[in-house]
């Protein structure tokens, strides 16, 4: 049944993390194909955010392996995981409020990442072009030279997505990208994600079932640190176990 591992961009196997004996993620396996949009859903405390933390290195795994394009991530430092091509958006918008939108994107641009490199970094045409291109994608062209603190909640979320896009990651992980957004903003975000997924593999955590249905190729349902069900949105919706622990409420 298991296809050869080279087909997967991300292969998580037997992943376990234990906090003082409590297993937040318990023997979890997850396989992502290139250019796939995978959504993780599940009740609160199911371990969804912890899975993203483990993949991006914020939390160290107790056991198991995470292979990304053939590289073992569990032993790598956070910044090297990012440099390997994994981008992560946090649940609350994490942007640099004292910098302008342009500077936010520029700081995220993948050049001058060492101390010396950052001192020698020049804002050349390539940087400006990349920033403007991303700004257009995230609907913030008109706001480039505004302080990021002045953006609305939704715009901040887009800016953080933009800060990931400019790094050109191969895998993009988004933690509740539409939380706290208005209906209009949700629609625009879904549109944004569709553009993004033309070139990236995306792993999303989301609660909004409508939104999940709009974007997901496949859905993984988590419960108590384990995979409860996996498949298309319709398959998952009809799974009695899923209805019992999650959708039924």
């Amino acid at each position, binding site marked *: 049944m298991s296809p050869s591992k080279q087909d997967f961009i991300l292969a998580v196997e037997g992943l376990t993390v234990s906090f003082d004996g409590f297993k937040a993620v318990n023997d979890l396996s997850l396989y992502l194909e290139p250019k796939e949009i995978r959504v993780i859903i599940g009740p609160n405390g199911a371990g969804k955010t912890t899975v993203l933390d483990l993949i991006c290195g914020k939390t160290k795994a107790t056991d198991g392996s995470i292979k990304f394009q053939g590289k073992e991530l569990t032993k790598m430092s956070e910044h090297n995981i990012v440099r390997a091509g994994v981008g992560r958006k946090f649940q609350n918008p994490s942007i640099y409020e004292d910098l302008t939108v342009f500077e936010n994107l520029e*700081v995220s641009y993948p050049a001058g990442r060492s*101390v010396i490199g950052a001192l020698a970094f020049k804002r050349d045409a390539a940087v400006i072009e990349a920033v403007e291109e991303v700004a257009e994608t995230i609907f913030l062209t008109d706001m480039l030279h505004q302080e990021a603190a002045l953006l609305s909640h939704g715009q901040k979320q887009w800016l953080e997505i933009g800060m990931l896009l400019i790094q050109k990651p191969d895998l993009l992980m988004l933690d509740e990208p539409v939380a706290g957004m208005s209906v209009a903003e949700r629609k625009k975000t879904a549109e944004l994600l569709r553009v993004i997924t033309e070139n990236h593999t995306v792993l999303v955590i989301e609660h909004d079932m409508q939104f999940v249905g709009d974007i997901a190729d496949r859905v993984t349902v988590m419960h108590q640190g384990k995979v409860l069900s996996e498949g298309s949105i319709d398959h998952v919706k009809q799974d009695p176990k899923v209805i019992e622990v999650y959708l039924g409420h």
Partner: protein
Amino acid sequence: MKANLFIEWLKSREGIYYVLLALLLVVVFPLALDSFRLNMVGKYLTYAFAAMGLVLCWGRSGILSLGQGIFFGLGGYCMAMFLKLEASSPENTAIQSTPGIPDFMDWNQLTALPWFWEPFHSFSFTLIAVLAVPALLAFIIAVAMFKRRVGGVYFAIITQAIAAILTILIIGQQGFTGGVNGITDLRTLMGWDIRTDEAKTLLYFVCVGMLFVCLIVGAWVMRSKLGRILLAMRDQEDRVRFSGYDVASFKIFVFCLAAMFAGVGGAMFTLQVGFMSPSFVGIVPSIEMVILCAVGGRNSLLGAIYGALIVNAAKTFFSESFPELWLYGLGVLFIAVVLAFPDGLAGLYRRYVMPLESKLPAILRRGNAEAQTLPVEEAK
């Protein structure tokens, strides 16, 4: 082309601030103050080096160090060791039981110069050591702390503890360091008597020159992408880390840079004041440096310089007139700054004076326009 850009920059608002500071330090003070008071301004300015380091490290990067006195002291001691060795020539110390070693070593029954004093016979080594010794200790502290992700209050307390430890070490090792008296009776620098009024005036100008070197280096760092990363790191450390940066290496860099600034300040202090003692190393001077930086404005390099001048001048004034009140005054000042105007003098300036400035250039511009049209008319 480059010269033109420089002139353009001087005409910009920021450039004018630098020019005004230079005028104040290079022209106004030397003309208005006698040699004694000018030397005191020079002493105040040595604290401005440490305060500028704190602007980079604390204001810009959010790393509060309560131990800048460590690096100020190390820079100062390096310079003092060189000057002391020069003052302890065998002729000058002929009455000692071991001529040719510093007097306090002789009093402490040392009969040979300790090995770590030997290289300080060389002036070029000393100049390097003034930068390298503080930087090296800062590097060791920073690697040990930041690689383990120790930060915030814990880091501040540890730096304060190190300042206390260093003071105790210097006082305890009297034979090697001069103990609680410090290294005193410094006379000449490469044969040039540093105790005369002329020498002190010249050293004041050297100090101002070094201050501007540090100011320009600091401003350059803040304007570079590294400066923006430091600011980003202060507000959203995780976001910077998960944007592919090794956060610890940036913290190590800025902490070492701040230490080097303080070291230069310490060396200039020794040269101008003529001695170095543990009372400039410990917790109290370290906290004073933080207060200078906070009063001036922790996000402004220029603010730190004005803060150092104003607070130290106030300190001199109050401790001459009401010696017992000064420490309370300093405490009240610090609390007032933190509660009422967290961006210090620079913040007050930005808020209240800058709006007035925009009216000023309108008048200046009119003046300039007239000046520019005149020659044209004459040419006709």
